[in-house]
């Protein structure tokens, strides 16, 4: 109950930010929400299931183009965003059925290459996508301030949605099943888990809101081009964020997104010509000094209660999973 109140307070507070913030801060807030969506989504396949997916950019780019095309055809923005979610999820279902039997590096490479192939298809299909010239979206006929607020709130709503999804996964049967799969996939099948189905579901969930985020991003910046929305870094950043905060945890991705954005804004702005190298250094430092993320520092080696999870310590811990 306390946590519900706390959650509502945090979300309410975040929603009230536009009352005090200028457009620069709102832009940061929108980025933060978008990063949170990407990291939270990746955490489901990468953190809980332990599958090193580099497919985030594919879902993001696909969502961006799906939304942009539908908007270009005259559909209202929210419909375009919802459509983008569906497209990304459907694509993930197909792709997942095809490549989730791969393990380790093979899966990583396959998921990485998908974005490249989509990029190339998008670039070549000039009649539909505008190709390398990119695609312009309809301009919103509302003031700049109102736009900033609109996209901030929309992205925030998407971030909340992805958090709720992650929370449901973490405390539900599927989260438990994913943790089993991560630790020993053969044994997971032997205790009655439909591993193939569970992995595909996790992959779909990790794509759903990423597609939406891509479409929102497209609406937000009015113009997309293939190398922008299919960038490899769009796949890598959510991984770094999640590792930074703590993979396989509920709050890790959010904490990681906050830290990542702070670093991006402070360090990289100052050293423009070396920001890729700085990101590289952050990655190396992260892996050496924070292998379990920030939450790994504060969390005890394992929970005191017999079951891992976020059950309140006072009463009988009533859940099986999560390990928040």
């Amino acid at each position, binding site marked *: 109950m306390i946590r519900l109140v706390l959650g509502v307070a945090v979300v309410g507070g975040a929603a009230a930010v536009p009352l005090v913030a200028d457009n620069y801060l709102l832009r940061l807030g929108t980025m933060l929400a978008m990063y949170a969506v990407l990291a939270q989504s990746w955490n489901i396949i990468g953190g809980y299931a332990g599958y090193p997916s580099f497919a985030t950019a594919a879902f993001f780019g696909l969502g961006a183009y799906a939304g942009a095309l539908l908007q270009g055809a005259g559909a209202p923005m929210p419909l375009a965003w919802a459509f983008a979610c569906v497209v990304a999820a459907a694509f993930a279902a197909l792709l997942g059925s095809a*490549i989730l039997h791969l393990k380790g590096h093979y899966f990583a*490479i396959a998921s990485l*290459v998908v974005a*490249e192939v989509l990029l190339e298809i998008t670039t070549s299909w000039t009649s539909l996508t505008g190709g390398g010239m990119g695609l312009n979206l309809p301009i919103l006929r509302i003031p700049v301030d109102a736009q900033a607020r609109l996209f901030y709130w929309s992205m925030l709503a998407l971030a909340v949605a992805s958090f709720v999804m992650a929370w449901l996964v973490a405390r539900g049967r599927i989260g438990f099943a994913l943790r089993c799969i991560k630790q020993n996939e053969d044994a997971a099948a032997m205790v009655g888990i439909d591993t193939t189905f569970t992995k595909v579901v996790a992959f779909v969930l990790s794509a759903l809101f990423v597609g939406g985020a891509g479409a929102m991003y497209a609406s937000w910046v009015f113009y997309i081009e293939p190398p922008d929305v299919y960038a490899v870094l769009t796949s890598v950043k959510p991984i770094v964020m999640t590792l930074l905060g703590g993979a396989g945890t509920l709050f890790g991705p959010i904490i990681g997104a906050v830290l990542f954005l702070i670093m991006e804004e402070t360090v990289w702005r100052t050293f423009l010509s070396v920001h890729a190298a700085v990101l*590289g250094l952050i990655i*190396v430092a992260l892996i050496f000094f924070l292998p379990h993320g920030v939450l790994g520092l504060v969390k005890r080696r394992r929970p005191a209660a017999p079951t891992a999870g976020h059950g309140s310590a006072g009463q009988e811990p009533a859940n099986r999973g999560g390990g928040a």
Partner: protein
Amino acid sequence: MKGSPLAQGVGHRAGRASLTRPLCGHPLPEGEGSDAASNRSFLVLPGPTPMLYAQILLNGLLLGGLYACIAVGFSLVWGVLNVINILHGSFVVLGSYIAYFAHVHWGLHPFLSIFLSGGVLFVVGYAVQRGVINRVIAAPVLTTLVLTFGLDLIVNNGMLLAFTADYRTVRLEHPLGSQIIGGLVVPLDRLAAMGLAVALTVLLFFTLARSKIGRAIVAVRMDAQAAALMGVDVPRIYAVTFGIGALMAGAAGSLLSLVFPISPLNGTEFLGIAFVVCVLGGLGSISGAIVGGFALGAIQSFGALWIGPEHGLTIAFALLLLLLVVKPTGIMGRKGYE
């Protein structure tokens, strides 16, 4: 103006953005007119179709030997250390730069600078493995992937600062030119580069099969724990293996400087080539790398003809995806280094 928020903080975006910029689409400028067999000119060659196909196949094979050399070190590291070395593409580019500067300053022919670039990169690779990668060698796949990606960002950014993104080319004073052999245009420098690349790859094969250190590498690949029990210094072998992987990349880079323009932006492309060749030929076998390299070269050449030169690597990637889905062990099946 908010511009493009996602792209902010994306360093050399053009380079990172796409692995698929076609290298075979823009070969060396044909300044001297001697390099008559570049991809664009053969497309307009008159003559019967079988000859055209033969020419395209030849061009593909000329590329393929170099591809094999690029991929074999990557494959070795993957097989022995179970690490996908994202740095590999940058190692190749570094080798090309060494060849370029050795040529500009000392007049050293790229065929000779393979020793220099290979040697330098062996040291670099050995040090990187010993100092950095070895510390997470037992970590999950994701960790080593992300770590080498981070290292690649650093190295690539460093090269951009040092050398800029401009394309540079090695222009030989005495190019061998081309010869018409049996109706086919054979660019002799490329032929020699391909021959050297294959020779290096075969040399690596015999090194692994015959030398003491090679036997130790093979033993570690089979079973690192057992090898350790038999007195093999496994961390040292890991570092040597990584060094050899970098050496092959550097030597390949030297040879490639004759064929492709040099820029840090090419790193991702070479990495992509290494991926595809490895999966095509099957991980961890040298013969697989050779077969995979030639297969990729041929596929790209014909893909360039039928679908368009800018789609060369995309076709390869699509094929790679298909192959991963259907037969992850590669067309050669899984084999050891024997």
